[in-house]
């Protein structure tokens, strides 16, 4: 284990740049100099600007669309509507239920209705204003409970998924019973770089699109279907991505820009404004969750029941699988012998919801951790002890009946988190108190308290969706080039590629080629999967190249292949009678070595009618302890410290891992204390950074981290994906601390000042 206290890495460093070292990002230099090209920075000769017209209404019938006034504006090149979509008029991440442009019905406020191409963004904006859409307003269905029982809002119905999970005896109860209903508001990923892309018509009638996305190949297939093109005629290249967090897993402007390029015959650049970004991508599902737990006198969980309702909004996106995660992991990483759970994903006229970091586990963790505190309190037991007592371990079973075979050190993360040092006493500067820069709060107005939470989640895809990733490795002139379509969205996959190349092939110079669709799919940058899936593919490709070189050097030198090692740009013999020192740059100058590899995780299976089955691959857990300062009179909160121990398998890059953990915690703190898309009549009321607040540097707590390194079987170097656990249990830990400071139940996030002062209606 390596201890990091408040961000200071105190481990002995491995060789610079290899696995385990805090290798620097290959794109760090261009990024600090402003030279890195994000997809919004692209420019092309003859380029025009695309823009999208969106419905201002959550539910309406379209009587007519008149684009003539828009077309008459000088500088407007074209206006497209559903009539102009040559192929499928529907798209969708997993299921094609969303119109490229609405033509009969609009089902959410923000739904695309038309798009324009013009010579200047301002011309495009005026053109949008000149398009006349005759809407007949209809009553939106905004409450998922109403939608569950109501008239279908879509030919596919209103229930994206109803998943029952039944385990053990449904009738048995322990002596102590606690129940509660919990709610989460709609969180947004709020990445910093709004959606952007540049689509160019190609000579072969296809489209070349440079775009910010999480999954090039899935986008490609959806574009090809809607444009009625063969997939190979649609070529995507990853533009620089300004963060993602799930919001770029669904298509946003990809089809619109490609269609405009196809119609105009000119390169089309589309860049969303911040407001359009809020309207144009999916959000985290808001949820309402009822849970009832029972335990015996010793604190052992006996039974668990839950009803989980997630509002998926107007279209399916990834709701089907978010429901699965929510239901499967809804009891938390605790042994639960008897359970009945039902999870619903429901269609409404609210904005569509889909993937966001934590993917279903965030919603249930907020509820199950509140329940664990209530249960411990009811029994009169220490809250942390109750968690350790019930902690899952390898060999135990999930709610789905699946036996945990990989690493899952739940008790270890709990103990290690509890043992991390507490923060120093409060600063004397009012800026450091609740209220921050508003300097609302004097020292005597502050109550400090602590909360604790534990969470877990699966890694990679599940339920028989056994995806793969492809990578290529080539060494020529001593320079290694790694090619993989995995989307680098900020998480650091490109750094990891270099580290793997250096570690396996012993050279410093590792180049990561641009990600595009010329190679096989790498799958999505989501589900904490790229380190394991594409990292696995890169590792394999590098090892294949290494094996070719070993074979060659062994044959030419007579050395035993097992005696050869790769270091400092050479193949050397480390034992045996034959001295070998082959310079890789020389060896590969004339004759490059290359290999392609495909990586797949082990087989998973669908869940049966009782939600039972080996549906998941790997699991990861973390615990969080939050220390907060609260001004109970004003309802203001300052999160002082988040301590966390996380199950990481192996730390591949301590600095990068720390960044993932701190970044995840920031989003968890945001959900706990401020982040929510507020809907009025289904319309986002705060689609701006003025009113959708995310944590600033003055909101970010100090972070104390401890890694729990238990290698994961079949994972590259034993490493797990680490991006999601930080955002799962940080939120409930913060809220538990606010409850402790105020004595209020606080069953909804984000916790608002009105909740803390008791003025919530």
């Amino acid at each position, binding site marked *: 284990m390596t201890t990091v206290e408040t961000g200071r890495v105190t481990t002995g460093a491995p060789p610079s740049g290899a696995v385990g070292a805090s290798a620097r990002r290959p794109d760090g230099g261009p990024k600090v100099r402003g030279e890195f090209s994000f997809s919004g920075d692209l420019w092309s000769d003859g380029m025009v600007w695309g823009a999208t017209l969106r419905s201002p209404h959550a539910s309406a019938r379209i009587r007519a669309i008149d684009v003539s006034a828009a077309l008459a504006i000088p500088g407007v090149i074209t206006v497209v509507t559903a009539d102009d979509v040559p192929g499928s008029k529907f798209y969708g991440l997993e299921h094609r239920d969303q119109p490229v442009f609405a033509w009969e019905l609009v089902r959410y406020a923000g739904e695309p209705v038309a798009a324009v191409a013009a010579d200047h963004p301002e011309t495009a904006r005026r053109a949008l204003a000149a398009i006349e859409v005759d809407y007949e307003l209809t009553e939106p269905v905004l409450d998922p409970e109403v939608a569950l029982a109501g008239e279908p809002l879509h030919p596919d119905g209103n229930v994206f998924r109803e998943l029952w999970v039944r385990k053990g005896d449904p009738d048995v109860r322990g002596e102590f019973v606690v129940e509660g209903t919990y709610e989460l508001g709609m969180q947004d990923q709020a990445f910093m770089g709004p959606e952007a892309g540049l689509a160019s018509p190609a000579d072969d009638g296809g489209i070349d699109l440079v775009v910010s996305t999480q999954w090039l190949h899935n986008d490609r297939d959806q574009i090809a279907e809607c444009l009625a093109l063969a997939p190979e005629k649609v070529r995507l290249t990853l533009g620089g991505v300004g963060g993602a967090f799930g919001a770029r897993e669904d298509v946003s402007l990809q089809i619109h820009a490609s269609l405009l390029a196809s119609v105009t015959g000119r390169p089309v650049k589309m860049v969303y404004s911040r407001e359009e970004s809020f309207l144009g991508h999916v959000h985290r599902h808001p949820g309402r969750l009822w849970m009832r737990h029972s335990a015996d006198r010793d604190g052992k969980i006996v039974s668990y029941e839950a009803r989980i309702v997630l509002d998926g909004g107007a279209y399916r996106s990834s709701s089907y699988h978010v429901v699965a995660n929510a239901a499967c992991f809804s009891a938390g990483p605790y042994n639960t012998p008897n359970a009945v759970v039902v999870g619903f994903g429901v269609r409404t006229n609210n904005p569509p919801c889909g993937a966001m970091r934590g993917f279903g586990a965030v919603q249930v963790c907020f509820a199950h951790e509140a329940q664990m505190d209530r249960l411990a309190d009811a029994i009169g037991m220490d809250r942390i002890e109750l968690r350790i007592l019930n902690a899952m371990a390898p060999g135990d079973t999930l709610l789905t009946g699946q036996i945990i075979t990989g690493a899952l050190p739940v008790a270890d993360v709990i103990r290690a988190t509890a043992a991390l040092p507490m923060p120093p006493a409060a600063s004397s500067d009012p800026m450091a108190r609740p209220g921050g820069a*508003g*300097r609302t709060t004097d020292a005597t*107005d502050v109550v400090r308290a602590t909360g604790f939470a534990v969470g877990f989640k699966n890694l990679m895809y599940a339920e028989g969706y056994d995806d793969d990733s492809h990578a290529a490795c080539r060494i020529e002139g001593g320079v290694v080039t790694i090619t993989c379509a995995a989307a680098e969205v900020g998480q650091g996959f490109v750094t990891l590629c270099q580290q793997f190349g250096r570690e396996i092939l012993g050279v410093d110079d590792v180049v990561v080629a641009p990600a595009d669709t010329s190679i096989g799919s790498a799958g999505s940058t989501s589900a904490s999967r790229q380190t394991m899936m594409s990292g696995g593919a890169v590792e394999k490709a590098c090892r294949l190249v290494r094996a070719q070189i070993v074979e060659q050097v062994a044959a030419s030198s007579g050395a035993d292949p097992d005696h050869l090692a790769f270091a400092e740009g050479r193949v050397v013999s480390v034992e045996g009678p034959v001295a070998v020192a082959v310079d890789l740059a020389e060896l590969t100058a004339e004759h490059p070595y290359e290999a392609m590899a495909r990586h797949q995780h082990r087989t998973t299976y669908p869940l049966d009618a009782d939600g039972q089955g080996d549906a998941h691959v790997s699991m990861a857990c973390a615990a969080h302890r939050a220390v907060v300062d609260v001004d109970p009179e004003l309802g203001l909160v300052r999160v002082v410290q988040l301590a966390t121990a996380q199950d990481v398998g192996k730390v591949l890059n301590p600095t990068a891992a720390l960044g993932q953990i701190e970044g995840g915690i920031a989003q968890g703190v945001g959900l706990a204390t401020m982040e929510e898309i507020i809907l009025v009549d289904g319309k986002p009321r705060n689609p701006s950074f003025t009113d959708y607040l995310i944590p600033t540097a003055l909101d970010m707590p100090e972070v104390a981290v401890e890694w729990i390194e238990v290698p994961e079987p079949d994972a590259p170097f034993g490493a797990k994906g680490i991006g999601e656990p930080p955002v799962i249990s940080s939120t409930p830990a913060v809220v538990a601390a606010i409850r402790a400071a105020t004595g209020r139940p606080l069953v909804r996030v984000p916790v608002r000042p009105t909740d803390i002062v008791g*003025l919530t209606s």
Partner: protein
Amino acid sequence: MDVTLPTTVDEAVSARADAPDAVLLAGGTDLMVAVNAGWLNPTAVIALRSVAELGQWRVDGDQLVVGAGVTYERMLREGLAASSPGLADAARTVGSPQIRSAGTIGGNLGTASPAGDTLPVLVALGAMVELAGPDGRRSLPMQEFTTGPKRTALAPGEMITAVRVPVASGPQQYRKVGVRNAMVIAVASVAVVLDGDRRSVGVGLGSVGPVPLAAPEAAVFAADAVDWSAGGPVLHEVDAAVRFGELVAAASSPIDDHRSSAAYRRLAIGVLAERCLRTACAPAVGEDAA
């Protein structure tokens, strides 16, 4: 000309007379939000940054005159902050360093948002707003200047040149509640100004009414409750601060919106006011010496 850059107030006034549709541009922190969003499409702009008079501040006897073009950042600097710590406190809560180095006190007044951070301080200080227009110069009491949300008493062609406030002669406080620890629009804010020379108290409230409000009853109560005979203001009864908070809350007329509720705003404004008075009079009350 698309953009006019006058160097004197007279030039600016005549530029407006020449181009009645021209938009006045100070720091741009409000105006450009509207332009970028497409709410405003300027056809001519009069940029005020080169008008030397607007960028100056001076002490005139016991009065402080702050030019309309003085930025929040400059209000934080020593000379100006010493003469008006309340304005400095308020300026420090505005946006971010980037906003503070562009935004101006004149812009804050001209926008006249109920949440404008310097406005409650100007109300508490009984500021006079100095104006120049085609008919010459005049000044208006702060409370007559703001007439509604984002509405002012500026006559056509008129512009703000300065604000005139008393130089501080006692503690001044500004406190602001938002839902984040920095860079946030006020949900409720209070300025409390204790004037030892005049033995008076001024109160200004932000985000709890259509315009920044005064709380005259609370102000008179506080002036009576404070013992001015010691070196600084002293509150002998802790309850007086509580009562002051209640009177301030009663003077507010907040609404529900997406940022908060009326009930919370009323509560918060009272708590903030109580704390302002309590701390301004510390340490005699002995509650909070920190």
